[in-house]
């Protein structure tokens, strides 16, 4: 790894659109000022990742995002030695890069990673702000700009997939949910440029599905899917077809729920 690593490529140059639901921007800014690690909780597609991008842009800091999965090991975060012609060389992982060069490191869906992987973040998230690379024999002192953000969706919560208390208690938490209907209508309109009347109907369908959560649906229709549907309608697709394609088919294979949501679409959009 050369010392001339270009962290600029992780800089966000254009403002990502984010509609604040409450005072979360001020809260995050305060947390960043103190470099407190932050945990974002909330259902899928409610704007967690968008929020982090927006804040990184607002603070002018580079953002390194890692999508966690269950095959991820500690080396995938920290870095590892590789063999090459002259022997071996060390390759920094994303977490090390962020700590070294002062980026915001965003671990998306952290519960997907195995618990032995998540413990490597511990020394970075308390007063030490260090990252020991034990294989390399180096102790990386975190850059003053470095901050760690994790996100997870408590909706999946089951016995196997939960954060350990020792991990949880290192973060300040922000709870996200789907925006209130007026705000969500604004978001869908702003993202796609579609009229507020159609956004309102889309949000109505979204709320119908969210009411069914726990009765055969694991998760309601997310804001992201509503935006997809609006995008399709914007292209000239008939609203009923667009909703079936973007809102219903992706979220369920259950025939009864599909039928009910299809009916909700027909009831809200007049053909």
């Amino acid at each position, binding site marked *: 790894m050369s010392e001339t690593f270009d962290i600029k490529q992780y800089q966000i140059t254009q403002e990502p659109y984010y509609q604040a639901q409450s005072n979360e921007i001020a809260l995050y800014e305060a947390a960043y000022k103190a470099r407190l690690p932050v945990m974002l909780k909330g259902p899928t597609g409610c704007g967690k990742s968008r929020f982090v991008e927006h804040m990184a842009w607002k603070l002018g800091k580079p953002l390194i995002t890692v999508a966690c999965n269950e*095959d991820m*090991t500690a*080396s995938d975060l920290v870095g*590892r030695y*590789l*063999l090459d012609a002259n022997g071996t060389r060390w390759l920094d992982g994303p977490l090390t890069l962020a700590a070294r060069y002062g980026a915001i490191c965003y671990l998306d869906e952290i519960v997907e990673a195995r618990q032995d992987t998540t413990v490597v973040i511990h020394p970075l998230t308390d007063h030490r702000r260090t990252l020991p690379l034990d294989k390399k024999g180096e102790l990386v002192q975190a850059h003053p700009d470095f901050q760690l953000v994790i996100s997870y969706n408590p909706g999946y919560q089951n016995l196997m997939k939960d954060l350990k208390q020792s991990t949880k208690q290192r973060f300040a938490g922000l709870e996200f949910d789907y925006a209130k209907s007026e705000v969500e209508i604004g978001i869908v309109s702003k993202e796609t440029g579609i009229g507020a009347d159609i956004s309102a109907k889309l949000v*109505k369908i979204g709320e*119908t*599905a969210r*009411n*069914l959560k726990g*009765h*055969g649906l694991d998760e309601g229709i997310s804001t992201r899917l509503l935006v997809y549907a609006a995008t399709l309608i914007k292209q000239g697709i008939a609203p009923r077809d667009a909703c079936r394609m973007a809102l219903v088919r992706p979220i369920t294979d259950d025939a*009864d*729920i599909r*039928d*009910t*949501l299809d*009916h*909700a*679409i*027909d*009831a*809200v*959009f*007049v*053909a």
Partner: protein
Amino acid sequence: MTATIEERQKLQCNFKRVQSVFDDCMADARKYLSTAGIDAYIVGANTINKTGRGEEPVLVFLEEMPQVAAKLGEEVIEEVVTFTRTLAKSPNSKAIPNFLQSLGAAARALESRLLFTEYLNLVVQTAIRTSPKVHGIDSMYTSECLPDFLDSVPHLLSLLPLGGLKKWVDYGVLAYPNDPQHQREYFQLKTADSRAVIQRERHGTLFYDAERKLDLYMRGLWLHDVQFIPYSLDFDELRKPIPYLNEQGLHLPDVFDDLPNGVRGIDRYRAVLAHLSAHRRWTTPLIADNLSPFQRMAVEVFEDARVEYLALQEFPGMRSIWRKLHPIPNENLQQDADVSYIRHRLAILSRALLDPSHTYDNPLILKYVARFNEIMEKGNTRTPDIQMLGVQFISESKVPSDSYGKIYFNNTEVEYRDDNRLMWLFIEEGDEEVYEERPRPPQESEDEFKIPPRMYPEWDYSAEHYRPDWVSLYEHLQPKGNPAKIDQLLAKHSALAKRLKKIIDLLKPQNKVRIRYQEEGAELDLDVAIRSLIDFKSGAQPDTRINMSHRHDGRSVAVSLLLDLSASLADVPEGCTQSKLELSQEAVSLLAWAIDQMGDPLAIGGFHSDTRHNVRFWHFKGYNESWGDDVKGRLAGMEANYSTRMGAAIRHAGHYLGHQQADKKLLLVLTDGEPADIDTSDARLLIEDARIAVRELDQQNIYTYCINLDPKADEYVADIFGRQYAVIDNIARLPERLPQLFMSLVK
């Protein structure tokens, strides 16, 4: 137009009543039939007359035939006449009028020649199959059921497609082969079976099939969680119930057919639910005492329209469904002088309020629709706001005929609307004094804890369908005996127990499972290591997870042991000193002990039957109960009685086992003979039913295994259990064999 003289001459029939209706019939025939058709019609009437069965068949033929021929084509006349002649020659000639009477309904329901011919075949088949047979000769006796069947056909065909009708007949024929009295009742639609089969075969959207969808609909769109209570429309001819809401829940029909105008049954349900939910959300009760019944009716119409208006703000798509379900009363109806048209007038108003594209031009209706819309557009309306509208509408539109007793009902009922019973508060219920009768608390009976029976279907192999709710199964907790007896038995087998213990220790979960793709692990995974090296040499990113490790695999097995407790169990087999019952007790105790040692959940149940109305299921041990004195006591109390109706017991044990959380589910059936019961003469029937029951469990991922003590079991046991069985010839060794069998199964 009257019949011509030639026509009268052609009709060689001098019955007075025939002659008197002939003119009317000919007028009807001319309306529907061609000249050739009329000829065939009269010739047909003659032929039927000549069968010599009196005036009745001729009369019915003359009345029904023109419309049947109009529906199905004139060739059908010939077909019906030929068929009637055959029937006349058979012992069932008595049924001719009933047959002819059923044709009109059949033609209307079936609407095609092909289906109609099939219907005729069905009649023949029914006649043959319900005739008593003596020495295999069957064409000599009258079928008692045929007239009943033919009388039921109009009602049946209004509910069932022809295929369903055939199945209904099949069931009736096969279910009561030796019981003509019950069979007649079946065909008269008087038995519960008969209705149950109709319900199963009928067309349309059944409530039971749609229940979950409706539940989701209420939750998703209306945020309501209600109890649905279905009622049946079939057996209440005089006054059809309509949907309503009360404290118990939401009452709605058990079936909705799809409508010809394209409204699906499920959407008719949703229309009802949407209307009722709108009431629940927006209606506040009014005091009823100050209003006359007509005023109340009018207020209800406005209130219905108001809540629908509000619902349509949220779900505009509902309008198309409601509009299709709402009657369209004819404004220019020819009105009789002695009939009250109040309902008709209100229905027009209701239609005009719901449907903006209505074509009514009655100024009063238009005025009130305009006033209604004005109020609604202001927003924030409440029920009292429109009360005045209703009251004023009645006083402005009042005509003297309104209060006549004869009321015009046609086309005024809105099927998806409820009776608005929750909209009114009655302060005075009536003039009578009310004696309040407090229901006395039911006497606590000393009797043992009783659960209502569970109904199970039974498979009828010859008809290839289930007999719905055929078997009643009662659950009981086995009364306790002396647990010391079981301890003695176990002590007797202590040597065997010691051997078993060794096997158990070996069986305890210790299977190793390899976990691959480990960065750090117990040993090198060569496959992955080589692949990584190749990646590396070729310049790609190598996978460093080249190790593997192991973990112990846990076992998750739930076992249900089902004992056949029929009377034969009390026998002492040849060469033994103990009865099969005692041997079973020993074997089961050992097995229960062994399974308890292994820590798998085990339930023990037993069954015997005394006809299909009384299958008893005895609980000995539940899954979560530990192997203690309670269980031992119940095992010691085991008794043998009655017969072996196995299918229902298997289904019942499977029902509990299905709810267990385990990767593997095992049902062990310990029996000493083939399924049999005293109300079933066909030995094959219960065997086939048990086979289907095993297959049902197989579909639920339950592995069924039979341990059979009957040396002659080979004849049937494979039919039921496939290859999943063991026959124990030397019964004396059962206590030893049973645990071994179990262990070999779960190894």
